[in-house]
């Protein structure tokens, strides 16, 4: 019991227990470390073995590829051709040599095609014939100079396989020679030999990856070391290498050698054969590099002692730390509380400052509405000092200025614990009205019961005044709009009246222009009618006289016939003589000759009158405001007839009518346009000239061109000819509306175009484009 006295104190017992657990844990850690070191050593050894195997495999693949190369070379076409020609008996001088050269070139290409570390894989390729004569020898320049070689020793037989040989070099590491029999038509014909550089192969497959390697690798051929790296003694001196013949494939082994510091050192090793070839790789690794400088057992003890020391120290430190930690925790708790209080105070100060300096009025009331606090802005807005309002009931202050309904709703809402927002009307100390946007919210205590109310108010008096002003202005504006609308309606009626009058005036002017045109043309038309009427009347007068003579002669003839039929004493001749004489006197025969032409002439005159009247009738379509399919060529023809008297003495009219379809138009209006342009054309001809009227279909339009060879239109006035009342004629000779109306008719009423081209002294062409409407 005495021995366990120290355990009587529970605190101590706990400490001892903790130390024991900790010691156990440390022991576990140390053992685990030992185990992992052992595992690491095994893994490292495995990796070493695998590394050597991997390299041996790479060399094996390389050698297999080389055998494939020789097999390919044995299929060489040029070499076969050489043997073919040889079999035919050809000589080197006459033909056979060419095949040999071609084969040698092919060998050289094969030799240089494959590269290893920028050098040709094959330093040399040779072909021997069956007698051992060297026929092809292609090699790297400078190599194999002045050699004395017994080539026949390389010969084999048709049944042989490719073999590997090692040829030590004078200065270099020597060469591996692959020898392969060549057969032609199933007969042994020669030997293919390929040289490989040991140095290049060793460097590529072993040295190139040796920088990260901890071991050295040697190359073996048929149980002899043929390549030992120059730095081998960093692991094992060349002289201490085990006999290669004694090494077992893939069986790790170890040997103890004396290191440079005369201490014994264990070396691990392994030999890996290179496939089926006579080559092998033997690798050597110092054991301490494999498992580390310290052995796992030594490490175990060291770690255990170190762990116990740490454990003891840890217990002491732990105890001190625990006390410190408790103290530290208390100090931190105090500091934390102080910090919270400081933060709360700071927040309170911020809130207080915010309320005091708020641009809004803040007011705090008790549950029954008694004002407890107002901020400074309250005084700024209302003019009341805090002491004048604190203690007052806010309902009493507001009831005089707001409806009971509003205040009841407010009181009800906030007593329900909800927030109320609305506009309240108040009065400043100065007596002015004060409008405030007010939000009142309950302030609840920790138990959630309402303790106070806080009201935040914003002075919106100006806004309310502005709203009232806007309302007033709106009312005023509405009245003004009403007045203005009334005035506009009156004005519109006046305008409509004026428009109607203007339209009437325009119509009157149009009519006047028509009348002017007609009046202007009336004299000519009258002359045209008067002329045939004159000679018709004259002819009728002549015919009247002729009729009187015929009547007189007929009476005489009747009397003579009666006498003859009465059978009187007078002879026939006597009876007929006066008839004959009177026939001559009355010029009956002449009358008979003249009467036909007179009638013909009269009929012609009548026809002329009829035509003019028809033309006038056609032209009279002016009065018809009707759009119907019409023939524009016919319209032009009737217009020409109407103005004929204006044209006939001054112009030769050339009609060039194209085949144009009828189009829906107001032909009367268009005739008016044609007449205007034709009359203008006639007026433009100072003496004799030509007027050409041409019509054509142009796509979906009809183009009417009226050209004259007159004086033309000066450039300064050509842009004004379509203006109303613009005229260059003497006063009273033109209204100045002709072309303006033409423009109106063609462009506005027929959606067409009217263009004018004019050259002073040469003439003018008006071109009308009228869309075809069917």
């Amino acid at each position, binding site marked *: 019991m005495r021995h366990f006295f120290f355990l009587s104190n529970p605190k101590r017992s706990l400490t001892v227990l903790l130390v024991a657990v900790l010691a156990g844990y440390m022991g576990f850690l140390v053992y685990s470390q030992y185990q992992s070191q052992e595992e690491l050593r095994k893994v490292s050894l495995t990796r070493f073995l695998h590394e050597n195997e991997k390299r041996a495999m790479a060399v094996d693949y390389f050698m297999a590829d080389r055998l494939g190369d020789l097999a390919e070379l044995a299929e060489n076409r040029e070499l076969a051709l050489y043997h073919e020609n040889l079999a035919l*008996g050809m*000589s080197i*001088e*006459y033909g056979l*040599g060419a095949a040999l*050269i071609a084969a040698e070139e092919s060998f050289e290409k094969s030799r240089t095609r494959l590269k290893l570390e920028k050098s040709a894989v094959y330093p040399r390729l040779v072909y021997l014939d069956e007698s051992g004569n060297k026929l092809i020898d292609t090699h790297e320049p400078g190599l194999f100079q002045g050699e004395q070689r017994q080539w026949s020793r390389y010969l084999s037989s048709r049944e042989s396989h490719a073999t590997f040989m090692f040829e030590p070099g004078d200065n270099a590491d020597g060469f591996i020679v692959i020898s392969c029999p060549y057969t032609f038509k199933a007969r042994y014909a020669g030997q293919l030999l390929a040289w490989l550089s040991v140095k290049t192969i060793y460097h590529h497959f072993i040295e190139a990856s040796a920088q990260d390697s901890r071991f050295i690798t040697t190359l073996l051929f048929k149980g002899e070391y043929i390549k030992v790296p120059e730095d081998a003694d960093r692991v094992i001196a060349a002289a201490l290498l085990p006999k290669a013949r004694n090494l077992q494939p893939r069986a790790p082994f170890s040997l103890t050698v004396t290191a440079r510091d005369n201490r014994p050192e264990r070396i691990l090793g392994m030999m890996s054969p290179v496939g089926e070839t006579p080559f092998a790789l033997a690798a050597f690794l110092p054991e301490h590099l494999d498992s580390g400088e310290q052995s796992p057992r030594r490490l175990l003890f060291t770690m255990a002692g170190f762990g116990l020391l740490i454990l003891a120290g840890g217990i002491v430190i732990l105890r001190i730390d625990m006390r410190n930690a408790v103290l530290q925790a208390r100090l931190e708790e105090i500091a934390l509380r102080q910090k919270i209080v400081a933060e709360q105070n700071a927040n309170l100060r911020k809130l207080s400052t915010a309320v005091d300096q708020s641009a809004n009025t803040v007011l705090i009331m008790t549950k029954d509405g008694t004002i407890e606090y107002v901020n400074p802005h309250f005084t700024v807005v209302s003019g009341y000092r805090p002491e004048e309002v604190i203690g007052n009931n806010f309902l009493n202050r507001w009831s005089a200025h707001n409806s009971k309904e509003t205040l009841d709703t407010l009181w009800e809402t906030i007593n329900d614990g909800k927030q109320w927002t609305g506009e309240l009307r108040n009065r400043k100390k100065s007596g002015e009205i004060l409008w405030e946007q007010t939000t009142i919210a309950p302030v609840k205590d920790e138990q959630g019961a309402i303790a106070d109310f806080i009201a935040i108010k914003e002075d919106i008096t100006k806004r309310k005044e502005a709203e009232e002003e806007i309302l007033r202005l709106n009312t005023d504006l509405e009245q003004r709009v009403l007045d203005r609308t009334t005035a506009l309606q009156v004005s519109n009626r006046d305008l409509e009246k004026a428009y109607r009058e203007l339209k009437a005036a325009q119509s009157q002017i149009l009519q006047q222009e028509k009348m002017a045109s007609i009046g202007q043309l009336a004299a000519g038309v009258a002359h045209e009618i008067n002329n045939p009427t004159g000679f018709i009347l004259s002819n009728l007068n002549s015919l009247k006289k002729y009729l009187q003579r015929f009547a007189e002669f007929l009476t005489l003839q009747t009397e003579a016939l009666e006498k003859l039929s009465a059978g009187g004493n007078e002879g026939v001749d006597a009876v007929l003589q006066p008839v004959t004489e009177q026939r001559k006197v009355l010029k009956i025969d002449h009358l008979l000759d003249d009467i036909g032409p007179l009638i013909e002439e009269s009929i012609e005159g009548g026809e002329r009158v009829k035509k003019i009247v028809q033309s006038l009738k056609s032209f009279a379509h002016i009065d018809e405001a009707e759009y119907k399919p019409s023939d524009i060529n016919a319209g032009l023809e009737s217009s020409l007839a109407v103005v004929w008297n204006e044209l006939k003495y001054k112009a030769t009219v050339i009609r060039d009518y194209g085949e144009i379809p009828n189009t829906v138009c107001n032909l009367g209006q268009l005739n008016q346009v044609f007449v205007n342009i034709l009359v203008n054309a006639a007026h433009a001809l100072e003496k004799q000239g030509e007027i050409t009227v041409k019509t054509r279909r142009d796509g979906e339009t009809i183009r009417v061109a009226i050209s004259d060879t007159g004086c033309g239109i000066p450039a300064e006035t050509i842009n004004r000819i379509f203006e109303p009342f613009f005229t260059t004629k003497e006063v009273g000779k033109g209204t100045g509306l002709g072309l303006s109306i033409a423009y109106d008719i063609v462009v506005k009423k027929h959606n067409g175009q009217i263009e004018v081209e004019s050259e002073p002294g040469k003439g003018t062409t008006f071109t009308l484009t009228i869309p075809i409407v069917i």
Partner: protein
Amino acid sequence: MREKGKGRGFSIILSALLTFTTVTCALAADLDAIKKQGTLRHLGVPYANFVSGSGDGLDVELCQLFAKHLGVKYEYVKTDWGTVIPDLIGKKVKAKGAEVEITEDAPVKGDMIANGFTVLPWREKVVKFSEPTFPSQIWLIARADSPVKPIIPTKDINKDIALTRALMKGKKVLSLEKTCLDPKLYDLAATGAKVIGFMGQLNELAPAIINNEAEMTILDVPDALIAIEKWPGKLKIIGPISPKQIMGAGFAQDAPKLLAEYNIFLAGIKKDGTYMKLINTYYPSARMYFPDFFKGL
């Protein structure tokens, strides 16, 4: 023999007269005219590796380089062995052994011949040859199954020729008139062989004997080497028919400046290695057969 010598003298006089006539009226362009016209017209017949017919060949590349040397464009003018000389000199010719007879006018179509064009005595009478461009020799080729065996070389070309000619007796041998394979040039009739004038092209001689049209043919070395490479095991080279020959580019006699410029050009490419590069491309084994020709190159 006397009669033969008499005839030759007459032909020489005639050819000299006609040559003079040719010089005065031929239309082949000399150097200045070619530079002016801006094009060098190369007369060629597809033959061996000189003119492959596929746009390349030893002589095609030489002419292209020559055109570049002159600063003019190159133009290939295809012709055949019967018209290649008239196309150059503007006169039709008729070869009789070493002699030549000029018959009538012909249109000039090219400025130079480069076509594995062997220097032959009769050709030298109507065409000016450049410095040698390639060596040659005429060989006797037989079908592989022919009982005739290739000669065993004696190191003496005359003995080798005699051995070869002795093997021709009674054999059908193809030849091609108006070319370097003209039987009169080598007096094949004297061998006792049945010489057959082949009607096809030069390139078709080797396939003709493979097809049993005859047992043998004569071929120049470049063509023979290509034939045995192209048809391995079908043909065999028996031996030589002629001593070594040379080939060169042919020029009209009124184009001395063009000929001189070509010789300058040829010397240049022989010196800078371009020539041997082309030889190695088209006739890699030529150096072996004609070591003297390529010595120093």
